[in-house]
């Protein structure tokens, strides 16, 4: 445990799943719980190779329900714990996630989206946006980062632990099968070397002392006997959520100031938007892109600000309007027309975006 897994910083060329394992290691995660599912398997593979060397632990559970609940158990007792899943596994894990919301358990979940609905493909999609932001029988009291590059995958894996433990909402890194499986260069680092301090973990259960003698026992229930009680609880969650919102929300707005058309996208599609915007600008078209980095809490004000001058929004996502719903919920009242470019379950190239924009502009 003494030796740091990464000294200073280091340029590497690896798959996204490996990046996540290194990110968690850099973030001093103590334990991973998980159940295999493509395309997130290699997070577990790398972690289970690396973990014992650094005094870390790994448990393969019997299913995703168990992976989620063991992760909650580990977190509640004070370990920096995480899990990863995808697709049908993400669906199943909503049950523990909803409990994590209610108890404000700072567990970290890595989601590598695959195609849906159902088993569909093991490859790629952005079809788990609704599920990851608002899944379960609740109100989506979660924090969801959507990454676009391996560098971000590393950065936000570390950040997820800090956000979770600081604000005590379950926190998600939402990537996808492309990011999981592809290799590209990035710099991994020891957070401390970058001045990033890891928020210390605290046990909720199992603190020192004899409960009832040295201190009151901790008694956790999430069950209420009356509607009125529940209403107060949910209002409390909502208030806490709104309070951390401005601090946590993140976005990227590129060339939006004078843009006539703004591409709205998130995650890996951002990469295509980026290329498209630079090509469109070269072609003299005033294009920009806006991208929420936190899908929850959504960067509402920054988005309203960024799109103000635009004549048109082009919604681009590898799903049938899942991001679009979040956007419309956020900017309702705006009259800027939104053109959909929905490609459920399939990648989107910069060429396609350029073509679409050109067809809209003329």
């Amino acid at each position, binding site marked *: 445990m003494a030796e740091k897994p990464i000294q200073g910083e280091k340029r590497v060329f690896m798959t996204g799943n490996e990046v996540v394992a290194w990110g968690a290691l850099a973030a001093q995660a103590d*334990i991973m719980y998980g159940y295999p599912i493509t395309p997130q398997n290699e997070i577990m593979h790398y972690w289970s190779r690396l973990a014992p060397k650094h005094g870390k632990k790994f*448990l393969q559970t019997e299913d995703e*329900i*168990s992976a989620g609940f063991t992760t909650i158990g*580990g*977190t509640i007792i004070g370990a920096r714990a995480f899990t990863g899943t995808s697709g049908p596994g993400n669906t199943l894990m909503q049950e523990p996630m909803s409990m994590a919301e209610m108890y404000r358990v700072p567990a970290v979940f890595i989601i590598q989206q695959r195609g849906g609905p159902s088993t569909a493909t093991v490859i790629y999609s952005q079809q788990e946006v609704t599920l990851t932001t608002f899944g379960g029988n609740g109100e989506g009291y979660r924090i969801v980062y959507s990454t676009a590059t391996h560098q971000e995958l590393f950065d936000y894996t570390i950040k997820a632990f800090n956000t979770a433990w600081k604000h005590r909402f379950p926190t998600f890194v939402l990537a996808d099968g492309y990011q999981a499986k592809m290799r590209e260069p990035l710099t991994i680092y020891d957070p401390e070397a970058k001045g990033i301090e890891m928020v210390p973990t605290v046990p909720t259960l199992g603190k020192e002392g004899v409960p009832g003698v040295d201190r009151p026992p901790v008694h956790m*229930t999430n069950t209420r006997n009356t509607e009125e009680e529940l209403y107060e609880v949910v209002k409390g969650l909502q208030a806490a959520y709104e309070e951390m919102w401005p601090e946590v929300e993140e976005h990227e707005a590129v060339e939006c100031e004078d843009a006539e058309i703004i591409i709205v996208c998130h995650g890996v599609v951002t990469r295509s938007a980026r290329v498209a915007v630079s090509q469109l600008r070269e072609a003299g078209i005033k294009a920009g892109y806006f991208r929420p980095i936190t899908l929850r809490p959504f960067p509402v004000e920054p988005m309203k600000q960024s799109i103000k001058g635009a004549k048109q929004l082009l919604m681009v996502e590898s799903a049938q309007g899942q991001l679009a719903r979040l956007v419309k919920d956020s900017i309702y009242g705006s009259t800027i027309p939104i053109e959909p470019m929905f490609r459920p379950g399939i990648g989107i190239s910069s060429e396609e975006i350029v073509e679409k924009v050109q067809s809209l502009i003329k």
Partner: protein
Amino acid sequence: MEFDISMPKCWRRETKGHKFCPGCGHGLVLKALGLAIDELQIQDRVVFGCDIGCSLLAYDFFNVDTMQTHHGRTTPVITGIKRARPDRIGIAYMGDGGGYAIGSQHLVNAAARNERITAILVNNTVYGMTGGQMAPTTLPGMKTETSPYGREISQTGYPTQGPEMVAAITREGAYVARGTVGKLSQLKNMIKKALETQIAGTGFSFVEALSTCPTNWSTNAKDTWSFLEDEMTKYFKVGELKVPAKEE
């Protein structure tokens, strides 16, 4: 002369009378557990998890850190805790629905992996909290809300033999037993052995407790006892099924 209440030391008095129905066996299982915790002097190390089912009513029962979980999910929560903090003593407390139906994958896999936790399962032959539906342990011919004409074994099988199943999947080092609230000292001793097994770290420990649910059985005291002692024991054999070898 002042007489004190005779209550396990680790029971939390501030939350008593507890929330269980009159004559509910949960109170007795928790008494056996309380006595075992007292005897082992582990109150400061125990983390107690209770399920959804009437066991949730125990979330504030002990002067012990406690987390109420979801229906069937107490086993993985306690497993997660124990894996992260092996110095804690994890107890997963659940009903027969939670353990043998919705959470059975967790129970059998915790058993198979030999998780160093203690699972205590209250077998009251019904889904108590939801108002008396058929449970995996409902007796043949027994009427419940979802077997209104009596449980038809040709349709829904025999009452689940939980400890037998767990015993079949565990290996040496594990402790598996079935006790009953009708024999409270024996039950307490079984729970104690289960906890000792966990402390020794030899393997998974599991105690099923035959228990009463007068509310859903619609029984008076006499019939409550006789259902427990005469009817249930026809299908559920009380005793130890697996004990860690002494010399391990």
